[in-house]
């Protein structure tokens, strides 16, 4: 079951590579966050208690409700951001790059799993997410898409945390979620200001600071 969820996580990245709509990006992030919730929940089912529910529920609330809600309401609708993403490379090439990376990551994970205590599927899914998030930041132009790319990357790191089976103490996980929420909140404010003072929402307008 765990592997199925992880594969679904990977498939969401392929959708990310093909969609050209900003809302599509947001939907992928929400889907990933819900998958993360189930992935965290799964091992807890055997020794179920109210306390163990705290972390998965916080993930669900912060990543699947609060952050997407904030982005949708305060950035996409309020700033009337155009729904299509702008890209530096062709859509097909982006997909090709993502698929190749994913294959390479899976092969690599399989190789290292022989020597180390790593579960190859979640490890590969997590790393694919980190790299795809990075590609989104590099190859897409819209600032809001960069934020979502960053969040996809963070989701990958979260999954990696679960994959290496090192449960961080609950308070630290909570601190991380709070940090990520505040980062997105501040980035949202910045995008708001950028679009009101520079009348644009793309990274190309940020060229004032040069050497």
């Amino acid at each position, binding site marked *: 079951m765990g592997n199925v969820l992880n594969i679904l996580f990977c498939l969401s990245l392929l959708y990310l590579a093909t969609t050209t709509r900003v809302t599509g990006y947001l939907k992928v992030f929400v889907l990933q966050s819900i998958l993360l919730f189930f992935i965290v929940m799964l091992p807890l089912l055997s020794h179920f208690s109210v306390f163990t529910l705290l972390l998965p529920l916080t993930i669900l609330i912060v990543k699947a409700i609060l952050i997407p809600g904030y982005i949708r309401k305060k950035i996409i609708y309020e700033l009337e951001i155009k729904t299509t993403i702008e890209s530096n490379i062709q859509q097909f090439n982006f997909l090709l790059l993502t698929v190749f990376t994913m294959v390479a990551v899976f092969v690599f994970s399989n190789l290292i799993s022989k*020597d*180390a*205590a*790593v579960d190859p599927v979640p490890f590969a899914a997590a790393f694919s997410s*980190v790299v795809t998030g*990075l590609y989104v*930041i590099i190859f897409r132009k819209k*600032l809001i898409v*960069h934020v979502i790319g*960053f969040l996809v*990357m*963070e989701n990958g*790191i979260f999954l*990696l*945390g679960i994959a*290496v*089976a*090192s449960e*961080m*103490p609950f308070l*630290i996980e909570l*601190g*991380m979620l709070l*940090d990520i929420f*505040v*980062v997105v909140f*501040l*980035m949202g404010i*910045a995008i708001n*200001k*950028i679009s009101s*003072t*520079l009348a644009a929402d793309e990274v190309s307008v*940020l060229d*004032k*600071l040069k*050497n």
Partner: protein
Amino acid sequence: MLVLFYILILPLLAGGLFFIPGNKKLKYQMSLLVSVIHLAASYMIFTGFAQPVVSQWFRIDAFSKLFLLILSHVYFWVVLNSWHFINQPDLYSPEKSRKIFFSMMNLYLFANTLALISNHLGLYWVALESTTLTVAPLIYYYRNKESLEAMWKYLFLISVGIAFAFIGILFLALSAHGTDIFEKGLFLSDLIEGSSRLNMVWLKAGFIFIFAGLSTKAGIAPMHPGEVDALSNSPSPVAALVSASLSGTALIGIFRLMQITAGTPVHQFAQVLMITGGVVSLLVALVFMFRVTNYKRMIAYSSVEHIGLIVLGAGIGGAALIGSMLHMIYNSLNKTAMFLMAGNVHRRYKSRESGDVRGVLKNMKWTGILFMTAFLAVIAMPPFGLFFSELMIFRGLVEQERFILLGVVLFVLLFIFIGMSRQTFAILYGKSERESEGIEEVNEKFNITHFTALALLVLLAAAGLFMPDTVTGVINQIAGELNR
């Protein structure tokens, strides 16, 4: 335990309370009080007078002692200057920024302190990310296009960088898989003690990711752009904080990793990586010192240069490591003075472009003299401390017979000196073309910024000549930790 309350809980409480609208003067006075208490507590911890009862979550070793003292010290001087700063009549000081200024400052102090004394890399990560979040609104203080862009870049680049550092922390966790360190909860003290039982391949991978990730925040080239943009576009007191104390909070993460690798086969690899980072930083500073036309950006690249020297010295080890720790202290004193003086110049000339600024020595007597003195200190003129610390780093290079590296470093430093002095002397001397445009010739009054710069520079010279035994004792402890 009470000491922990003073250095940790007090700034947090103050930061939270100051969000409530109220008298700004009172907030300033309270913040100053918090900073004095923090400084006193840090000093007591440093000298060993106070030994906090530490839970397993906190670690107060030689590293935390030194970096905590640096943080407290820089923070105190910056807070002391903050009332003067936010009330400058000729400074565009938006009310919204003034409202949150003291809250953010106190939260900044809290987050930094937490990062410096944490005994868990996960906790360190959370605290380090919080420092980014508290400093970002301060970078945006002027609320203009440049500061907005600087804030966005700082927030984004550093968040991505720190995310990579977290992958490194997870790799470190993987390296401890199957050992009792993992079972105990991956505390730093366990990782340092049991480093020989870690999986070396994962430890190496962890070091690469953490080093690259934290480089964005420490300002080590080639990951420096976010830091440079922030330093050159934030208000001077904030730039002083970021350059003189926040880089240290990022560096301590790298040094913690060095503590773990010390005594393992990975240590040599870590040293090579540190030396490479140091040399690349020096080279980048060299190239940009001749290209920048903005004097605050020039100081920002000087910051990259000095962080490069610190990392280089730490990578070499031995005498160079001791020099590098001394350099850390001296650089924090110098950069605070330098950024404060650059801030005075900016306020008077309303421009950060070096081309717009001429005759500072004539138009702003005190600022001019102190800027010149800080410049002499930054290029490591005796009797200022940086001269002695650089000498120690060079001694370390000679002791290890790394003559080619020494040659490269000396060559680069010489040309950085030429590049920097070209621009500095142009703004200090020379006739202002803009004199007719309203830069009136009034005698500059001696104010708190001048007092601060003077005090810091006197301290810098005095510390170079008469370093107290307590400081050398702590630095020797650090050297012992890394030369295991």
